[in-house]
């Protein structure tokens, strides 16, 4: 089963290596890992999508906790959350087929962010299902290049994964 972990870490040099190294060393499978700054200076947040049964997840979480730079871990998989991913897709777009592509872009509420002579870059944000669907729809036009950010996720409503809320749910 796939789990989504929201992980707060000290923004120290090497912290990404420590986390990534732990996963490879212990043989855990990462689906995706994103990292970026948060509302607090010095603290970064990782969203890690990891594949494994409950036993594996328990070990992953415990081993992550042993890293001194890891401050907090939430497995949000079974909670109410919002998740998003962003994708940039460069498609071949000769003038004759541009209309068709534009229609797809419209349906998915994606956007055109670059127009070249023979190509378009499309930006799309959404959950995984939507991103996969837009990619499928554009495939027939010839995808020249594609980049996805990986998933970011956040709990809905009054639940938090942030440092100031750490005490309450620990």
């Amino acid at each position, binding site marked *: 089963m796939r789990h989504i972990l929201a992980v707060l870490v*000290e923004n120290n040099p*090497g912290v990404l*290596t420590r986390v990534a190294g732990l996963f490879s060393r212990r043989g855990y499978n990462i689906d995706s890992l994103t990292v970026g700054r948060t509302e607090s200076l010095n603290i970064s947040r990782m969203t890690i999508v990891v594949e494994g049964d409950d036993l594996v997840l328990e070990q992953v979480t*415990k081993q992550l906790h*042993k*890293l*001194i*730079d*890891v401050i*907090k871990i939430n497995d949000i998989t079974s909670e109410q959350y919002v998740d998003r991913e962003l994708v940039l897709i460069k498609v071949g777009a000769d003038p004759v087929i541009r209309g068709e592509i534009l229609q797809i872009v419209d349906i998915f509420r994606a956007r055109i962010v670059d127009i070249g002579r023979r190509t378009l870059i499309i930006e799309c944000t959404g959950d995984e299902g939507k991103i996969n669907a837009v990619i499928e729809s554009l495939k027939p036009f010839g995808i020249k290049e594609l980049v996805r950010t990986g998933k970011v996720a956040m709990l809905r409503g009054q639940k938090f994964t942030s440092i100031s809320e750490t005490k309450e749910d620990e």
Partner: protein
Amino acid sequence: MPLSGAEIIIKSLQEEGVEAIFGYPGGQILPFYDALYSSSLKHYLVRHEQGAAHAADGYARATGKPGVCVATSGPGATNLVTGIATAYMDSIPIIALTGQVPCELLGKDSFQEADITGITLPITKHNFLVNDVKDLARMIKEAFHIATTGRPGPVLIDIPKDVQVNKTKFRYPENVSLKGYKPTFEGNKGQISLAAKMIGQAKKPVIYAGGGVISSGASKELFRLAELTLSPVTTTLMGIGAFPETHPLSLGMLGMHGTRAANYAVSQSDLLIAVGARFDDRVTGKIAEFASHAKIIHIDIDPAEIGKNVRIDIPIVGDIKKVLAILNSKMEQHLAGDWQHKIAEWKEKHPLFYESNGSLKPQFIVEQIHDITKGKAIIVTEVGQNQMWAAQYYKYTKPRTFLSSGGLGTMGYGLPAAIGAKVGCPDSVVIDIAGDGSIQMNIQELATAVHYNIPVIVAILNNNFLGMVRQWQELFFDRRYSHTEITGPDFVKLAEAYGAVGMRVEKAKDVKPALKKAIEAKRPVLIDFTVEREENVFPMVPPGGAIHKMLGG
């Protein structure tokens, strides 16, 4: 007055109560060595940086205080690696300080640059690269805190040369604040009560004690638990000394070369109380058959150990000493019954034994060492058969008296660790029980022992084989002794060349007199015991087998 980074390191070490450090200088650690020149900190110059790391480790194991080692950048730092990994696998608190190329040269493949924080990432509890002298004191404070609290372990601090030279105001922080590091010391009360109840109902309890009991200083509490519940106690290699092996409830060591009594007891028990142990494969053998009739209580400070290898019925995360004290307060005195009789019967029927056939037996030598030191020495070991015989045939009664590389199994550990132990415990007799293969891996440290007159005794059980590997070849590879016959130098002459006392013993009757002479010499001594060449360590659980199915012994 502002101090240089080098002076700050020394002041910080003194603030931490460090009395001895083990190291080796070089270009990028020169400012530190310069500051050391005019300080009162005692430094031991080893002959190889691996020796420094093992000496710091031996010091830490023998005293319970963190050990400190120092090396220069590049090759100096990489030479520490095996020693750091050894300490990591056995959860030993050491601090490794390494010089590094100046900040502006980092990442440029500069002369003697090695990414030692990268290299040691998976073998340290944590490590630091200091970019700014202003962070130095704080990082040293954090390093000691991390190394010595929770589940202990090695911490490395990599210090670029310019950081050692730059100056700042020195103030050693009183506290550390690490958001991501808060070990759990107090065990959950509810869980402890459940455990007490389960122990109360058990008919065939066994205590399985590991190195965590020793690092937590919980031997007394363990003793009390055993006597209250009349539970037999078996220890892992790392747990040796946590419970007196002379006690009727002692089963000795369990696992691959454990006693039959220990392995039978665990296999038949209905409750296994695991304390500061981690269900290593050398202990459990075939995991599906390990303690398969037992419920399991697991007490450990490291939550990640719980449920890692086996399913646990009652996990308790906390400091063992604290948890056991509370647990004991909930226990009533049990009475002896069938189980205790069964245990006594197994012990009686299956003692460790070896055949005396007139030749000099390695087991006999270990027994003689026990006799002459009245079981009070600090025994350090190398790795292989020597290590197992030292574990089996010496009866340990106190924690921190058996020092051995358990998790990593590092040949070459013994001599430098013995030096570290002797520096930390000058009043104890310290003996390295060695093999002729292992001793050659760090033999150069004899020079260190002689130079500072650190009177350690090296007892080589010389079989002219890489004995343990040969044993496996004999048993599992059709006696094809591929590259396990090993020659050595004339160890007696070698010892003398180093300035140590050298002796050779070939006959049983000469063992004790030689040992006596060695202890009285008050100088480093090496005794080369010529032993039976193809002696095996028994009993033995074949790799991957269930632990109650043992060969020999």
